[in-house]
């Protein structure tokens, strides 16, 4: 007799009575917890936040409608644009460096001649499991001005000490270094898995045709990896625009707000100045920016799969 795998249900009678669910109602009941929580803690806040961005608090502490005045204020807010500038600086400098590094490492680790691939993969991925708060604090101590290990290294090889926390440029560099350390391995692992799905025959055929390794990369690897690269670019963009922990704990906004990020500015506005309406406006400014950047990246990245 053909054994029906589902008949194992018959044999293992449940120790407790499970509610009997008809096929018609089952999906609704299955999604109900997710949908209810989602409506309460995602949909409602998104809508309420927008309404809040159109209000202001009057002298009595009551919220009153304020039209688009908050948005007008945002467009003229030098601090917001400074924070945005700092964040975009990370975006245009750090993200390309990090993704290029990740790609180089992934291509190397994908080579069949390399020994210790598993070891290198694990070691490079390790920073990605570390709490951002921990990373921030470790880097703060490593880069400490007078007795930090990095400045000690610099002076031993005859270079001058760097004022990582008082020099605005060095402060930005420090933030870039910490973020690169934290995220490169994560992106490398994503690229590596993408590379492994490219059939080896393609490279063999190309080698027979006399294509150099560089040519193989730009003719085979790069085009086939485009969807993955697009994903990591969008992911890094959204992540970068939301940076908070590092700005708050590692540089504390930096000298003259040199490393103040939009996320930190929003936190200051909302939870230190208790200006909830304007904080919501900043959040919506950020949302618009993320949507615009993602659309641009989709256009240029060409979503080839759909």
């Amino acid at each position, binding site marked *: 007799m053909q054994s*029906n795998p*589902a*008949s194992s*249900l*018959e044999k293992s009678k*449940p120790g407790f009575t*499970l509610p009997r*669910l*008809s*096929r018609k109602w*089952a*999906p609704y009941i*299955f*999604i109900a*917890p*997710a*949908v209810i929580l*989602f409506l309460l*803690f*995602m949909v409602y806040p998104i809508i309420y*936040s927008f309404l*809040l961005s159109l209000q202001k608090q009057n002298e009595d502490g009551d919220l009153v409608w304020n039209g688009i005045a908050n948005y007008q204020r945002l467009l003229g807010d030098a601090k917001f644009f400074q924070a945005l500038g700092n964040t975009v600086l990370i975006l245009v400098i750090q993200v390309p460096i990090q993704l290029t590094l990740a790609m180089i490492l992934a291509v190397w680790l994908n*080579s*069949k001649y390399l020994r210790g691939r598993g070891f*290198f993969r*694990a070691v*490079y*991925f*390790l920073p990605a*499991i*570390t*709490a951002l708060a*921990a990373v921030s*604090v*470790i880097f703060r101590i*490593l880069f*400490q001005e007078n*007795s930090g290990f990095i400045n*000690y290294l610099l002076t031993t090889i005859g270079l001058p000490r760097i004022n990582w926390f008082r020099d605005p440029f060095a402060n930005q560099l420090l933030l870039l270094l910490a973020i690169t*350390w934290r995220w490169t391995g*994560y992106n490398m*692992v*994503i690229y590596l*898995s*993408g590379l*492994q799905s490219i059939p*080896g*025959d393609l490279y*063999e055929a190309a080698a027979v045709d006399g294509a150099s390794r560089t040519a*193989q990369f730009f003719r085979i690897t790069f085009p086939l990896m485009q*969807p*993955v690269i697009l*994903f*990591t670019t969008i992911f890094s963009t*959204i992540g970068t625009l939301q940076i908070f*922990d590092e700005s708050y704990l590692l540089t504390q906004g930096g000298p003259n707000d040199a490393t103040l990020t939009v996320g930190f500015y929003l936190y200051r506005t909302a*939870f230190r100045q208790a200006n909830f309406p304007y904080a919501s406006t*900043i959040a919506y400014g*950020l949302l618009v920016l*993320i949507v615009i950047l993602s659309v641009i990246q989709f256009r240029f990245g060409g979503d080839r799969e759909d």
Partner: protein
Amino acid sequence: MLGQSQTRTKTKSLNRQTHVEAAGYVGERGAGQVITRSLMYVVLVIGAVVSLFPFYYMFSAATHTSSEVLALPPNLLPSTHIFDNINKLIKDVHFDEAARNSLVIAIMFTAITVTISSLAGYAFAKFRFKGSGLIFSIFLATLMIPAQVTYVPLFKLMTAEGNPFGINLLGSYWAVLLPGLASPFGIFLMRQSMKNFPDDLLEAGRIDGAGEFEMFWRLVLPVMRPSLAALAIFMFMTQWNSFFWPLVVQVQTIPTAIGALSGSSIIDYGGIMTGTSLSVLPILVVFLFLQREFISGALAGSVKG
């Protein structure tokens, strides 16, 4: 048995994958290649040192007193003050309480999100029902929305004036937990894995008269164990590491305790490195044993389906 045959096909496909994996670049051979390859190793080893050194420094500094951490030249060898540091952390910032909060919150968060995500993911993968496409798209769309948009309303919801029940949730576990429980990422990941479950088995179960929940519990979930493990690890790590939200709703966890330490006027460098070590260590240990699950959690988002 169902579980076994599934495992077997899985192993087979894994073997195939390693075969494909083994094929990398095919390039010219000879002296040039030896030099290139040696250079590659040198760079990879330097990279590995850069990757690992902060961890080593942290663990080593955790055993030093504050003044030992700041000594010049730096002393990179472990010392003996780890227990003094831990005791001071407990006295100064109630680190034991923070650790307990972190652990309880992360475990509760993991259990609830994995349950909710797998139920919803299963419904989206295996049922056609009114509005399923639309609801799923709305879930996915919010992945693009920055979390910042929701912070202020969520904070207000947690205060007594901001919710209809007049309950002040600030400082409680629920304030930390509630906002993240319906995770679009988790639902997406579960839907992707559940799609692979054979429809024939579900049909056979229905013919045998099994209830829908019974099938989900006894047929589907056991097979989904690897995906559940990956999701659970991802969720645990996310919650364990999270800093911003516990800070806002005023619950002391390990990351916010570290934040408090680093914000005080006299910083205890040995103590703070002990705190970060205790934050990193549990995740590190799990990572060493369950690397594959960690990495598939990280990859889940990048795989389209």
